[in-house]
Each structure stands twice: as structure tokens, then as C-alpha cells.
């Protein structure tokens, strides 16, 4: 039985607690927040035994095997080191740390102590993404991927989050090196990082402030990003982040020599892009096949709902469960350290370029 604890009892903590409660062979033993009332409300609502406002007391009393760190990312590095020092495995809310240097250091400490860490890239473990990996293993692409496209949109429709960030010049999101982008894009970048084969791909990034934000006289937050990730020895990739595309899209396309795959994370559909027909048949047949694929996706989702297997945050449950299994049975981690580090490196490079471009524009 794993003993689980949570540090950071804000908005995202609820989502971790809900998934942890579904997993057998673990007990959520205590929660901690620098604001005791926040820790207390979480403990009360989910009937958790202990709550604290002191990390050291929390670790000493609860002695957790795994700690979920769900504080703002600015605290992840320091809290991570404290938890590793107390021999705890850690699941970090994304982004794991502020930059790849901190990520590397945390991983090195964990390795030295024989502990494990992971990051909440839950979108990597949706049913459609898991199915995609099965297909790729079966050789559907006809070789290694040629090109990847990841598009991740964010909608300002959530007034709580949006108002909090836009209204508060001291909001923690504004304090991140990549600001709003850093808090969100790791979901979309990690999908690319999984298939990039080089450790230092080249990045060409272009970011700008949407007209929506400009209308609010917001000049600090870049909320539109287009990036090309490339290297001669690796698949190339495009990454798009947008707050303005409606309805919001979370899609990933992986192109191969023979066939390609389209994953729609929001709709939980997986479409195989296959076959080439002669002459006019190419205008008649593929759309029928696509229609059939969409129908099958829909039926499968309904079946999974009826069987109580389809949850809105099922990726997170799968990830947490796989992480716990990896600790208990010493099996490979659900997300490799290579993928975690590469995701962080790509993000560092993007933010560095945006900063450079921004300074350039200001100088002009």
C-alpha cells in the first residue's frame, strides 16, 4: 500500500485527489499548503486524515512514499529537493520546473537516491494516444515518423483562470519565464518530444500577443505561438499554440512513409490516414472510409462510457496508476526522463527566442 501526500491545495489539486481516490492499493494520507485553510478545505472535502502548513512536519508525520507537488511551478525545484531528501517519489504538476537545468538536477538527485519522478503530462495518456502507440508499434507508419504536427489551443472561456491572470499583475503565471505559454504548452510539446530522436533539435519560434489581449491593453503575455522543430537526423515538427482558434483544438498528427495518424484529444478520436485510390475513386472512397472510422470512434467511446471506462481526465488516472506501478514493481516509468528533459529543453529554446524577438522588436 503506497502512502500518498499532496503539497499545494489550489485548483489543480482537486483533480489529482479525484484520480488518486480511484486507484487501489494507495492511501491519500495528508495534504499540505502554506495556507493552512487551503489544506484544511481540501482535507475536509475529501476526508483526508492530515493537513499541514509546514512541509517538514507533513513529511515527518505522513511519511509518504509519493508526493504530488501541485504548487505554482516556481516552488517545484525547492520542494522537489526537500521531498527527495525525505525519500519520496514525486509526481509534479506541469511544468516540472522553470527550466531544463532544474529538471536535470531534480532527475539526477532522484537517480542518485533510487527514487522516481514524473510530470503530469496527462494528455499523453488519453485512450486515443495509447491506441496510437499500439498502432505505431504494429508498424502502420511504414518506418520512423517523417513529420509531426501538434496543435494545442487554450480558450479564455474559463473566467476564473483568465480573470485571475489578466487581472493580477503579480499572478504566478506572469512570473514564469515563458508566462502563459509555459503553464500550458508542455502538453503539446511533450507529444512532439516523444518522437524527436535528437537531443538538441533546432527551434524556430514566432510568438505574438493576440488582438484579444491587446484590446485589454495587455502587453506582457504572448498567447500565440508558432514553432518549427527540426534536425537532419530526426523527424521535423510544427507546434501551434493559440488562444484565438475556436473551438479550441488539441490535435496531434504523425506522418509516416506509408500511412499517417490523426489524434483528436478533445473528441477522443483516432483516424488512420491510409490508402490511395486510382483516379476518381480517390474522391469517393477515402471519405467513406473516414466516415466509417469516425463512426467506430464514436461507438467505441459510447461503449467505454457505458462500461465506466471513459472519464474526462482518464489520462491522468492512467499516468498516476502507471507511475505508482513503476514504483511498486520497478517497471519503466510512464514518461521517460529523456522525454521530460527534451520537452523542457524545447520550451527553454522557444522562450529564449521569444525573449530575443521581443527585445528586438522593442529596440526597433
Amino acid at each position, binding site marked *: 500500500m503506497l502512502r500518498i501526500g499532496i503539497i499545494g491545495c489550489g*485548483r489543480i489539486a482537486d483533480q489529482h485527489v479525484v484520480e488518486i481516490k*480511484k486507484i487501489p492499493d494507495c492511501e491519500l494520507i495528508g495534504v499540505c499548503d502554506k495556507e493552512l*485553510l487551503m489544506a484544511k478545505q481540501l482535507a475536509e472535502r475529501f476526508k483526508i486524515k492530515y493537513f499541514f502548513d509546514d512541509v517538514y512536519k507533513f513529511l515527518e508525520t505522513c511519511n509518504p512514499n509519493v508526493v504530488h507537488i501541485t504548487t505554482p511551478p516556481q516552488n517545484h525545484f525547492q520542494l522537489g529537493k526537500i521531498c527527495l531528501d525525505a525519500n519520496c517519489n514525486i509526481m509534479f504538476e506541469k511544468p516540472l520546473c522553470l527550466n531544463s537545468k532544474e529538471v536535470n538536477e531534480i532527475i539526477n538527485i532522484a537517480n542518485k537516491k533510487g527514487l522516481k519522478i514524473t510530470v503530469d503530462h496527462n494528455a499523453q495518456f488519453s485512450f486515443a494516444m495509447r491506441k496510437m502507440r499500439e498502432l505505431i508499434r504494429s508498424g502502420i507508419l511504414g518506418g520512423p515518423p517523417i513529420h509531426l504536427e501538434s496543435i494545442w489551443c487554450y480558450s479564455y472561456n474559463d473566467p476564473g*483562470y483568465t*480573470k485571475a491572470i*489578466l487581472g*493580477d499583475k503579480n499572478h504566478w503565471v506572469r512570473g514564469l519565464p515563458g508566462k502563459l505559454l509555459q503553464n500550458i504548452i508542455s502538453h503539446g510539446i511533450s507529444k512532439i518530444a516523444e518522437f524527436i530522436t535528437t537531443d538538441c533539435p533546432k527551434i524556430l519560434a514566432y510568438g505574438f500577443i493576440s488582438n484579444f489581449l491587446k484590446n485589454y491593453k495587455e502587453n506582457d503575455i504572448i498567447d500565440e505561438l508558432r514553432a518549427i522543430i527540426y534536425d537532419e537526423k530526426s523527424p521535423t515538427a510544427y507546434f501551434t499554440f493559440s488562444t484565438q482558434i475556436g473551438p479550441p483544438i488539441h490535435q496531434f498528427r504523425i506522418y509516416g512513409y506509408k500511412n499517417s495518424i490523426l489524434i483528436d484529444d478533445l473528441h477522443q478520436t483516432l483516424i488512420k490516414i491510409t490508402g490511395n485510390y486510382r483516379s476518381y475513386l480517390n474522391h469517393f472512397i477515402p471519405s467513406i472510409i473516414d466516415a466509417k472510422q469516425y463512426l467506430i470512434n464514436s461507438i467505441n467511446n459510447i461503449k467505454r462510457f457505458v462500461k465506466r471506462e471513459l472519464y474526462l481526465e482518464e489520462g491522468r488516472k492512467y499516468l498516476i496508476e502507471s507511475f505508482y506501478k513503476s514504483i511498486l514493481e520497478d517497471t519503466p516509468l510512464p514518461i521517460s526522463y529523456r522525454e521530460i528533459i527534451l520537452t523542457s529543453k524545447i520550451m527553454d529554446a522557444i522562450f529564449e527566442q521569444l525573449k530575443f524577438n521581443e527585445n528586438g522588436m522593442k529596440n526597433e
Partner: protein
Amino acid sequence: MSQNQYIITFEEPILITGANGFIGSKVVETLIKYGFKRLKCFVRPSGDIFLNKINQKLNGNNIEIIIGNLLNWSDCERASKDVSLIFHLAAGIEKTFAGCFMDSVIATRNVLEVLKNNKNLKRFIHISSIVVYSWEEIATRNVVDETMSLEREPELRFEPYTYGKVKQEELVMEYCNKFNIPYVILRPGEVYGPGKRKISGRVGINSFGFFIHLGGNNQLPLTYIDNCAEAIVQAGIKKGIDGECFNIVDDNLPTCKEFLKMYKEKVNKFYSLYLPYKFFYYFCCFWEYYSTWSKGQLQPVFNKRRCIANWKKIFFSNKKIKEKLGWSPIIPTYEALSYYFKYMKESGE
């Protein structure tokens, strides 16, 4: 009314938190009408149109707009320093429990912590809501009054706003009693008027793509914005009511059915399906059961407690606030409704 019936003079500083909100901006306007000269309006940096409204009403009055965040200690200290009255209207309205709790409870705790050392404070006026009551305790067709207890397990209603408001009120009582801070708690009903664009959930819901009318012949606990602001201001300044709680609802309340009929006649026609209370109650029970059985595949947004709190047949009384405070609605309900419907029609609802 002469100034000697008030607990403060017109020159003493008054803080209004949430001053850019629907109720807050009207409270500011009412205080100006009463003649209070030193108003400190605390607004979030994101305060938009209501802030403009306040600005329009300044008219040379000595009003200080304090832009800040009540989650920030220094902002709380800056705002609360030396004030004689506080109208605390700030509350969390977002969708998450943690967010509502933070904006309602933590923010209130910060204000109260600062107030512990404020020797000038004459009264802390906390604006709560009728949602805080434990509706299961009251029998059908009975009258709600201020003696009812607060919801004991508000999280089970699965309404983050309600959760935040219940915990906020508990905290206010605890702090004020512990540190001898004079207070009054006000629990308005459904506050409406120009500026509020939604039909009350007590009338019905739009969750499934069409309007489900659930209120039927239940009394709709309306409070017109001007009447509500008047009650709040009076509760802030009148002598002899410290430690009291008051519900605020107007006179001659319509039923939900009457309200919906008038709305359709005067604003716009739309399709609505009436579901009897019993039917919807069992639907909510089933939904709640399924939510538990499926381990949250559907969140328990429809549940027994929420159904009882919103759609059980209950009557509302303003007897206490009329008797103890001497308040009565300044705008009668039929007139208030006509202003509201006119606004809704003109704003294109």
C-alpha cells in the same frame, strides 16, 4: 433620517470590497446618495465596466479607488487602515472549489486579520447569501427565517459558490466573536436588476440545451438591486443591530411560473419544458447515485441537496429586517420587474 441615528458620521472613511460588482457598485451609489463623503472602493485590477460606472458617479465626491487583491496582505492593510465601516461584498464566483474558497474565505480572513488591530472600526457588514441555509431542515411550504442553521456539509451540494459562501460566513462569525469585531450579516435572495443578465436558477436551468422550468409555483426570493443596496447601507449605519443576521427579500414576491410568464411576454419568447419537483428530485437522486457508482464519470452536479435547496416549495420572509432595521423596499416588485424586463429587452436577451 438624521445623522445621530447612525453609528458613523458622514466624514468617516468607509471601505467597500467588491465595489466593482453588480451589488457593490449600487452600494457605492447609495452611500453617495446618503451623503457619505469618504468612500474607499476596493476593486480587482480586472474590474471593467462597473469600475467605469463608479467613475461616472464620482461627481466630485471624495472617493478613493483602491486597485488590489484581497489575497495580498499589503493590499488588505492599505485598504482597511483606519476605516470605520467595511461593506464586504467580495466573493469567489469561479467554477472550482479551491478558487471560490480562496476568493471568499482566504480573502475574508485576510481582511479580518487586519481589522483585529483597527480601533476605529464601528462595524463589519458581511454580505452573505440565502444559499447558505441548510434547506433539508425546513419542511415543505414553511417559511425561511434567520434562525435556520447553515449547511453542514456544503461540499455535498457540489456548488463551489455555495461552499465558499458557507465557509466564509462561518469564518466571519468565528473571527468577529473571537476578536470582538462588531458585525452584521446580510443574506440577500436572488438579486436582480439592470446589469444582471441571467434568469435565476430557481426558475429553471438551461443545462441540456433548452430551458427546463423547475420552479413552478414556488415563491421566487427576489431582491431588486436598489432595494438590496438600500438594505445593505442601512444595516451598515443604523444603531443597535450588531451581531444580527438579516435575510433580504422584497415584498409581493412572484412565483417562478409568474416570473417566467412575464419574462416571455415582455422580453422574448422561448421554449421551456416544465418538470414537476418530484420528477426532478428523483432525477437528481439517480444522477447522484450514478456519479458515485461510476466513480465520477458524471460529476454530481445534480444531486439531492442542490435540488432541495433550489426547487423545494418554501416561502421567504423579510419580517426581521423590516422590524429590526426599519427597512422596506423602496421600489415595489411590479415596478422593479418592469425595469428589469425593459433592460433585458433592450440588451438583446
